[in-house]
Every structure is written in C-alpha cells, then in structure tokens.
C-alpha cells in the first residue's frame, strides 16, 4: 500500500513538473508572439505614415511641375515676348507695350481661353528698375486652395516709347503662382 502511495506521489510530482514546464513554455511563446506583433504594429504604423508623407510629397512635386510649366509658358508667350518682325525673339524679355495690351486681353478672355493654359494661377510682372510698376496679367486663384507654389524669373522689360533713338530696357521679374 505504502509503495503504491509513494509511486502515486512520484507520478503526481512528475506531472506537476511537466505542467509547470509546459506553462513556462506557453508563457515564453506568448511573450515572443506579443513582441512580434508589437514590432509588426510599429512597422505597419511607420509604413502608413511614410505612405501618407510620400503621397503629400508626390502632390507637391506635381504642383511644382505645373509651376515650372506655367512659368515656361509665360516666358515664351508670343503675347509678351520681345519680338522684332521676323527676327528671333529676345529671351527673358517682355515688351512693355505688349504687357499693357495683354493685361486687358487676358482679363477679357480669362475663362474662355487662358484658363485652359494656366488653370488656377496668378501671373504678375513687376518692374523694379527704373520704375516700380506691376502688371497683373492673370489672376484666378483656386477657391479654398490648400497649397500654392510661387516661381520667380527675372526678365528685362523693353519700352519702345521711353528711349530717344533706341528702346529702354528696364529690370523686373515675373511671378507665377499656381494653386491646388
């Protein structure tokens, strides 16, 4: 009887030890899984944040490309560029006479014609020397815009009426702001 009781006791002890070992292993596995999922969660959060920033950057990039394109369009507009008959037009030069006329024309045909070229944008020409004059050529900001991208280019302003024998060249810049 005694032997049987001792044997039973030993078996119980062995079972208890095995149970404890199993419990420890379970806890270890759970801890590892917990840490793994935490890391995975961090990874997912980081990835989505990165995607969000990347998307915003892409939008900014697209706006910057539009700003560049609009600026180039303005710089080479036949309505503004300094020309002389059939000769090659002067680069980085706007004709003041053309500027005065185009200012009215652009405002008159803003929606019908120029909106297709510039979309939501503002185009201004500012003279800094000899006078301080401003020509607002095109002004159509996007209602409730979230972002705007200004681009500046320096130009010379040819005034055929100012010089005595030769035209006078002023100094100024063109500012093109695009909206999104």
């Amino acid at each position, binding site marked *: 009887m005694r032997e049987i009781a001792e044997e039973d006791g030993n078996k119980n002890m062995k079972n208890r030890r095995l149970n404890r070992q199993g419990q420890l292993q379970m806890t270890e596995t759970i801890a*590892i899984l917990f840490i*793994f999922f935490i*890391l995975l969660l961090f*990874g997912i959060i*980081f990835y989505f944040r*990165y995607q969000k920033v990347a998307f915003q950057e892409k939008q900014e*990039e697209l706006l*910057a*490309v539009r*700003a*560049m394109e609009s600026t180039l369009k303005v710089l080479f507009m036949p309505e503004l560029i300094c020309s002389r008959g059939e000769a090659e037009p*002067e*680069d*980085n*030069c706007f004709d003041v006479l053309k500027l005065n006329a185009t200012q009215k024309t652009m405002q008159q045909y803003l929606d019908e014609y120029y909106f297709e070229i510039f979309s939501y944008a503002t185009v201004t020409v500012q003279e*800094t*020397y*000899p006078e301080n004059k401003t020509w607002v050529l095109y002004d159509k900001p996007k209602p409730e815009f979230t972002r705007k991208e200004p*681009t*500046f*280019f*320096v*130009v*010379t302003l040819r005034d055929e009426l*100012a*010089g*005595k*024998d*030769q035209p*006078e*060249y*002023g*100094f*100024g*810049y063109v500012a093109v702001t695009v909206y999104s």
Partner: protein
Amino acid sequence: MGIKKNVRGQMEAVGLVVIVILIALGMLFMATFALKSEPQKKIFTRKGLAYSTMSALMKTTVSEKAACYSLSQGAPKIGGDVIEDCAKYRDVDTSIYQCIGPTSGKALHSCDFLAEMIAYTLGTTLGSWNKNYEFHAQLIPFQGEEPIDIIEPIIAGGCPKWKERDSSGLFPINTEAGLVENSLYLCD
C-alpha cells in the same frame, strides 16, 4: 528529447530571421529618406533664375533719371557701355559716364555706379526672395593674364564652392581694355 531541442532551435532561428528582416526593412526606409534627390523644380529654378537674372541685367539700360547720357548715344547699357567704361577707366578718377546711383542719389564713377546698380537690382529681386548670391565681374587684360576684379564682388549670403550652387555661366563682354567676364552664382 533531441527532436524537441531541434524544433526549438529551428524556431529560434526563424525568430532571428524575422528580426533581421524587420531591421533590414527599417534600414531600407531610412536609406530611401536619406538618399532622396533634390527636387527637380529647385534645380530648374535655380539654374534658370541665375541665367535669366544675368541675361536681364546685361540688357538693362540706365534710365534717363540717372542723367548719364553722352551726347549722341541713347541710354547706356549695363552689359556694354557701363562695363566697358568701367574697365577702361577703372584706375582713373573720372569716367565718361557719371550716372546717378539708384540708392546713393549721387553722380558716380562708372565702376561705383555699376556696383551700386547691380547690388540694387539683385537686392530687389534675388535678395527679396531670400536667395544667396555672388556676382563677379573680372577683366582679363591679355590672354593668359590673371583676371582682375573691376568691381568688388557683390556677395549676399555667399555661395562658396562646397555649397550646392548654380552659375549663370560666363557672360563675356569684349572691351578695349580686355575681356570682361561676368558671372552670377546662386544658392539657397
């Protein structure tokens, strides 16, 4: 027992691989951020702006208000008459053109006028947009000689070589005194 140990060892190895993969992904993201190239627009604008500024400046004529007309000629051109006059008479007290400076309001020697005029025009454009720039006008009297600054370099913020900068390129003007090379450096 041996099989159990083997399985456990394999699982640990898998865990290690997972951690290594996660760290590698993290490093990859960091590298993507660090190696991001400068935006295309920034480079285009800086290059184009440097060239257009120089091109416009060289074409600009001095206004009637500056009262520096010689008898028969029209308005003197900065990138022609004024620079030539400065190159020729830089060591002499008086020059042919004695124009009124846009900031000082005084009749100046063509070299002083040139310096004031360029500083003014660049200040009202590039300066007002918080750009750093450097303007140089150097005379090369004869081929192979060391260039001489005909005016003090106009520096706003400065664009040293180690900084990311763009140049307008050389705008050479042939004068009786030699070749005058004008250049503008632009940086953010």
